[in-house]
């Protein structure tokens, strides 16, 4: 089937205005900040609903073209997972599907389409007295649904009861073109009938004896195209107090951090090095460097929050209990001098970023991130520091009730400096594989990480994943080339 025929079929489904193969349009989808080789898609289509997506996926199976789903309205895109790796790739841009389908305060849940961004939703939730457990200062144009599907780390570990949170139920079009609903959304009955029975699509598990949402999550769009999802929400606090502890000894902060998560004493909880905290709070390179110099190397941030009539009582009990822990650990909070203020910290913890805070220092960054257990975090920091000659940001985030830790290293560089860029590119993968060899768990293996991560993982995992892929996308029409599905 010719390319023209594919495009004309897509126009029949989406309408002429919603399909483009204009070179200037395609360029934006051809490359990103990663080291994945640039390649232009055949065209871009902007479907407006699940029915059209279903038709397109069926068409892809019939005409043998590939589909790359994209949800965020604007970049920068970072990981290479949406760059075509095969010919005849159609980008399915879902960013125009922007409906907030349901906001249910009583049950602390919302139902959103893929195009709803952090910039769209955070103000709406705030007005309703709700909040979402969000990644660290996410880009305003970033799709909330894509972020949850990618298992991006969130900043309140005590509200992350499972590694899949805050994602709950989904509506998905599998690679076969079949529409499916996961969790309690699976039925019986339509969503309206379920709502009449009192169901709010809160339970992500199932239907019955499997949980397909877990294989859609982390799949980089290679198992199904999600057309809406329900997302878990929390009540918005009415008062909050920010704490900032500094040390030159990472272990000292980690030990205290451990007790905060063990006893679930705080909301947001994270550790940043001085450079990353400065990047978050300041705008210009000079301001960033000045603040970084003022700060000690390691910075623990945590937020205590209370709500309603007894909010102050809650804060009092939390402060008292935390003071006892600090005393036991020989920490003295009174020694901390206030360098940054609560408002600025809360802004970066609760609000979306209009651009990307990681771009402010040098205009470019390459990120390395993986999961670690608690004890090995300092070891991975040492490996990274020994391998790196660039400005290095570090972000450590406890996840999943403190059972694992996201370790993120942001390598800041000037993309206009050819020599610097070349050197970084040559060494980037080597550094990653060194970390993998040491036992860093690259559980979200993007681009060239995938091959390396699966080589270092038991063969049975890869074999099982291929069986799953064969079930849900037997013709490999969804995002071919990612993960381990192309030998």
């Amino acid at each position, binding site marked *: 089937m010719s390319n023209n025929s594919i495009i004309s079929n897509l126009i029949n489904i989406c309408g002429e205005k919603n399909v483009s193969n204009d070179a200037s349009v395609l360029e934006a989808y051809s490359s990103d900040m990663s080291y994945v080789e640039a390649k232009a898609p055949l065209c871009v289509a902007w479907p407006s609903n699940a029915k059209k997506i279903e038709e397109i996926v069926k068409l892809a199976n019939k005409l043998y073209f590939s589909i790359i789903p994209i949800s965020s309205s604007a970049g920068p895109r970072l990981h290479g997972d949406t760059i075509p790796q095969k010919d005849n790739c159609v980008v399915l841009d879902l960013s125009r599907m922007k409906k907030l389908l349901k906001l249910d305060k009583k049950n602390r849940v919302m139902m959103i389409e893929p195009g709803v961004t952090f910039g769209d939703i955070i103000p709406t939730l705030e007005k309703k007295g709700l909040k979402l457990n969000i990644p660290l200062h996410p880009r305003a144009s970033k799709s909330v649904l894509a972020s949850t599907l990618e298992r991006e780390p969130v900043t309140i570990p005590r509200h992350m009861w499972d590694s899949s949170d805050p994602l709950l139920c989904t509506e998905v079009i599998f690679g076969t073109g079949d529409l499916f609903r996961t969790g309690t959304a699976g*039925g019986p009955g339509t969503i309206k009938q379920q709502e009449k029975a*009192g169901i709010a699509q809160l339970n992500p598990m199932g239907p019955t004896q499997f949980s397909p949402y877990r294989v*859609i999550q982390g799949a980089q769009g290679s198992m199904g195209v999600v057309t809406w999802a329900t997302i878990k929400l929390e009540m918005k606090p009415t008062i909050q107090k920010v704490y900032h502890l500094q040390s030159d000894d990472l272990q000292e902060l980690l030990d205290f951090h451990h007790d905060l998560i063990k006893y679930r004493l705080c909301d947001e909880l994270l550790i940043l090095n001085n450079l990353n905290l400065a990047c978050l709070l300041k705008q210009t390179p000079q301001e960033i460097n000045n603040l970084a110099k003022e700060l000690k190397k390691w910075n623990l941030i945590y937020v205590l929050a209370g709500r309603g009539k007894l909010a102050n009582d809650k804060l009092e009990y939390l402060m008292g209990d935390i003071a006892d822990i600090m005393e036991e650990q020989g920490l003295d909070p009174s020694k901390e001098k206030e360098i940054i203020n609560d408002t600025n910290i809360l802004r970066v913890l609760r609000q979306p970023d209009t651009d990307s805070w990681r771009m402010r220092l040098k205009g470019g960054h390459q990120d390395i991130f993986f999961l670690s*257990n608690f004890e090995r975090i300092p070891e991975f920091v040492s490996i990274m520091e020994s391998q790196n000659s660039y400005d290095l940001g570090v972000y450590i985030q406890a996840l*999943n009730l403190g059972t694992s830790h996201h370790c993120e290293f942001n390598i800041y560089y000037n993309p206009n400096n050819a020599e610097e860029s070349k050197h970084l590119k040559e060494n980037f993968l080597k550094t990653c594989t060194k970390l993998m060899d040491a036992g860093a768990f690259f*559980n979200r293996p993007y681009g060239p990480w995938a091959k390396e991560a699966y080589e270092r993982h038991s063969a049975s995992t890869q074999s099982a994943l291929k069986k799953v892929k064969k079930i849900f996308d037997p013709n490999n029409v969804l995002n071919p080339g990612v993960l381990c599905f192309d030998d």
Partner: protein
Amino acid sequence: MVLEEDTFKEFEKAVGVGNVNDGEVITDAYAYNWCMEMFNYMDGKEPLPYSSRPKAVILPSSTEEVQKVVKLCNKYGIQVKAQSTGLGPWNCVSSNNSIVVDLRRMNKIVKIDEKNLYCVVEPYVSGAQLQAEIMKYGLNCHMPGAGPQVSPLASATSMNGPGFTSPSTGHSSRNVLGVEWVLPDGEIMRLGSWGMKNNPDWFNGDGPGPSLRGIMRGWAGAKSGLGIFTRVAVKLFPYPCSTDFELSGHSPNYDFKIPDFMRLYVMDCKNFKRLDEIIIQVEKEEISFMCSYLSGLAVMAIFANSFEQMMELMAVGGMKAPLVVIIAARTKREFEYKQKVMDYILEKNKLANIIGKQYTPYPVFYAEALRSNLGLHGFIATGGFQSTLGQCDTAKMCLNSATLNVPAKQLFIKKGAVANDFGEGVWMTSYESGHYFHAESPTMFDQTNKHSVKGTAQYFERSNEIGLVKHLGAPFFVEGDRWHDMFGPHMHNYHLWLRKIKEAFDPNNIADGGFYITPGKDKKGALKK
């Protein structure tokens, strides 16, 4: 000898002499289980408490031995059913071509990881054993409603997972981290970070990439229909109060020193509408260790050790919509704060806590709450017990489900098949500070009486059908081909996807799918539209 002599010897070589038995005394014992009679009747068989007789019972002691056994099953075309602590018919074989793999020799707590807040257990570790060890570190585990005597591994990987402490310890399925799993073809799969070749560890069970936990289980587990789990890492939680545990006396009349910073509230919300509002108010405050709605009769049962004791509690049983909350705290400050919140909610909603005023439970109740032992009180009235319903989503849906179930249950009460709880017997618990709820209807019946067993089975079927036609979600016991083929067409044909998974991972149909799904039953091929 039921197995061919050569086959027997090969199994014996795999697990050691003395660890394979196909004699009738042993195999008959493994054919018996609680509630088997009811499930037999639902399958159109005589309501006897026995399954088919397994061909043999095999006791492996390690993952590698389990693998050898499964490979031999593939070689000889014999099906395999695994069991850990073995409670319920799900542990019994569904055909006479199946062996039982009893995992009782795999009984170690492999690791207690205080820093990363998880432990790793083998199949035959009980919740009670685990809790006794992790208390030493100030930690607690989630235990299913089935009680502390059952296997946390089985609950996490293969069974259901609600528990009385679910508001603070979640659901078994969502507490899973690394997993070690012998697939039906004999391959060993290690999920997440435990599958790494370099420095494997148990702290995460997802990826790289998609999480195979989605294939492993759903709201319900696959009940060994998709392989055998030999080790699992599950999350641990802070112990809710002081770990002092001073118990004296003799069963069942133990005395117990109630630990510091623990308080029980039982309040009558009067009707379901108010109950729905109030339970959510409590849970949004994130203060409860336990937060359940129990029907009046169920409240009587959790405070009683005998039928006679239960009858003495009629005044308690008269409550229309009792909400049972336990708050527990690590420190005096935390305890005072939580009590203030409860006082505020009580005052705001004009509720009264009957505890200490109208009724004071025996102190051992608190020990049982900490040990998650309350579910076993369901057996007091008749000696036989099973739950219907089991859907999970909002409190409102759960209470709708409970209401719609009453006439069905009353019908079988009138027939004299199930014990009279006015049709209202329900336990509903919150999960994860009220982010979702599930409700089930504990039903007491006489397992030794054919009329009672048949009536209870008929009531179960009716109750499941109500879930389907009223769009309340899939109940607990939608498992096995018949139920999947009934519910699947109304639920996006999920049964066809589940069947594809079974076929892909178990090409020789070796894992006994009697309580899961079996391949090839639906001959229609392509997914129905």
